[in-house]
């Protein structure tokens, strides 16, 4: 069991000037897991993903991915991580194709391999002629597709995707779910944060609910529902944990 654990987060804390973004969070996931990170705004989801992606350092705690300490030896693991930020800022004057080539170059992907994967994901994400448009002129959904393609072209082993479904149309969401399920079957770890709770419940095989920077609960969607009482859906459970929505109505 120990050998299949690909992600181990131990006692992670992160404080900003006036707020505590994460407070002693511990979680783990094995290869092939689709882990859904949910929580209200300001719960610490984005901070946690940024720490796992090596963008920010925690104040306390350790993050081990594939046996490598991300905080001290990030360079050894970064080529295996595919990170999608919540707010996507890219070079507005580069075209989609140029951006994909640029990323492929940064990750040292051979030219012929890039050409094959480019054709594959161009087709999967149905980017068509849009890929030749400058990124600055693209719609949110199309930009999301290009950046997602830039991650899949690298074929990483760990997918850290912050709100990957936001901005995608139903077809885009369907495509993304299909690819991510395939990647999980190929023993990759997929971690997604999302506010679309029915989608997380249906898509993920493990859920972590964060609230006020703390891990509130961790388990399969069924476990989470059953441990929180006779709830009918994850949405009900979420409302019960995070607020007093009933009081306002």
């Amino acid at each position, binding site marked *: 069991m120990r050998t299949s654990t690909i992600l181990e987060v131990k006692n992670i804390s992160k404080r900003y000037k006036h707020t505590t973004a994460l407070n002693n969070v511990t979680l783990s996931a094995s290869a092939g897991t689709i882990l859904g990170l949910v929580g209200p705004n300001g719960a610490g989801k984005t901070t946690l993903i940024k720490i796992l992606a090596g963008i920010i*350092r925690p104040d306390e705690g350790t993050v081990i991915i594939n046996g490598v300490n991300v905080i001290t030896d990030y360079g050894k693991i970064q080529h295996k991580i595919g990170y999608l930020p919540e707010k996507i800022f890219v070079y*507005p004057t580069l*075209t989609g194709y140029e951006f994909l080539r640029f990323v492929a170059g940064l990750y040292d992907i051979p030219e012929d391999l890039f050409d094959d994967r480019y054709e594959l994901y161009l087709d999967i994400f149905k980017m068509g002629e849009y890929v030749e448009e*400058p990124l600055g002129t693209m719609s949110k959904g199309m930009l999301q597709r290009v950046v997602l393609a830039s991650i899949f072209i690298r074929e990483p082993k760990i997918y850290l995707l912050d709100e990957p479904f936001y901005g995608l149309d139903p077809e885009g969401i369907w495509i993304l779910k299909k690819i991510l399920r395939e990647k999980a079957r190929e023993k990759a770890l997929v971690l997604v944060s999302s506010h679309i709770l029915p989608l997380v419940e249906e898509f993920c095989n493990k859920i972590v609910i964060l609230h006020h920077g703390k891990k509130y609960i961790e388990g399969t969607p069924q476990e989470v529902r059953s441990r929180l009482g006779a709830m009918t859906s994850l949405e009900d459970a979420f409302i019960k944990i995070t607020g007093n929505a009933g009081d306002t109505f």
Partner: protein
Amino acid sequence: MSKKDFIKSLKSKQTILSYAFLIIGAISIHISLKSLFSHGNSLIAFQFEKFETISLFITNYWLLFSVFTVFLVGAIFKGIVFKPSAASYMPVEIHFLKPALSFPNELFLAKLIKIAVKNLIYLLIVFLIFVNPFLDALEYTIILRAVLFTASYLLLLILMAFESLAFFIKSEVIYHYRIKNSIKLLLVTAFILVIGCTGIIAFGIPFLPTTIFINIFYVTLFGNSFLDLIIVLIFYLVAYFIVSFILLLIISHHYYLYIEDYNDLPGGSKFFPLKNKFPKIPPFLPRKFFSMFYKDIIVNLRTIYVQILILSFIVFSILYFTSSFVATLVFTASPIFNAPIELFIFTLLTFLLSPITIHSFSDDLICAWLIKTAPIDFKSVFNAKLAIYLILTLLSTAPIFILVISLAAQPILQTTLITLIIIESFLYITIGINISIVYSPDIPGKEFPFSGFVAYVVLFILVTIPLFLIFTVDFYNFKIFPIKLVASLVYASVIYSLILIISKDKFYQRVERS
């Protein structure tokens, strides 16, 4: 920069120190120029005898004319290709300010006035520090100085108006073309042509505003003798200014009322015919470095700064190789550049004409997540930028440097000049990249803060002083030149290493903050 940003920047010790150094530096340059043009060097003072200066300028009328025409064409070109900064709204302005406006073009006009006031202050500083000592040597009266300043400011405003007009007219034409309203398209074109031609014919205005400005400058060289003619010429400029701003009021009102939402074209990315030109990297080359390098080339080629730079380079090169103005300049320029101090000031000022490196990291800070998570070390990113901006800066300053190197009569002078240019440009770019990391705004599209420019100038001057001291030791002794070269290379590599370490720390700090 807004008032709030300015007050915030004043709280930083680094900014206060930079401003203090800038003021001291400006006063020093002013005093040096004043002494250079009047009492400091009798040879130079002789060269600036009024009659000879006038004859020199007259011989070079076409050079000045070409330079100012490039400015005019550049402003229109910039307006056609890109949105002027006054017409570029930030998301917060679009969502919150725009719905509250009384007139659709109110925000645009407010921004335009802000830029006009800022330009007035910049022009005043340039006039007081750099132009005034020169005018002293030419014995300009206070009235003539005021006339020249007014004409310069009017020209600046007209160029601003032309830039915005070019943008609005282009947008109108594209809009009517897209909705296939050929009658309105024709009407818009005819309206602009009629207004333009009527103005020029009715008032007998010489063709271009830049031509009027050059004429004013030439006439002022003859003192107060042609004051009435100067007043007429100033009125021409005022007429240009009024007509262009009335046109701007009308067209901007129409644009913001009917066209903006329909025709809000982002960037100018479609202008440059570089569609999908990311070249394949041969396997024997370091792929990560060259990916960064190619990306920077493409991104830069699609910016207006680099396009204008290339255009200017071509124009200046043609002028240099085809005209005979070099011969007339040899007469005055040669003695000036025999003195090391002037050589130093000259190279500093020439580099400061091309501060494009301060934007080198702007986009990369916005896309910091990509650079930080990619398996590329910061040094490769830094060096790729160093290479591309070194090429661009040397390209933009090359016409001036080639001219001066050819004018320098002695081999030691030429060798020193070439060495200084190469090492200084290396340091200039290194500092510029660091400034870009420290000062680039967090919000995309927000203009670069003025304190960044100040810090750039100050840091560059401070860093190059030791270099200058190395070269001035026994200046004319060719035998010790190799020692000076080694010393300066060691100094430059130490500065590079220091700046690389500081830049890396600052970059990661900003990534964490973002």
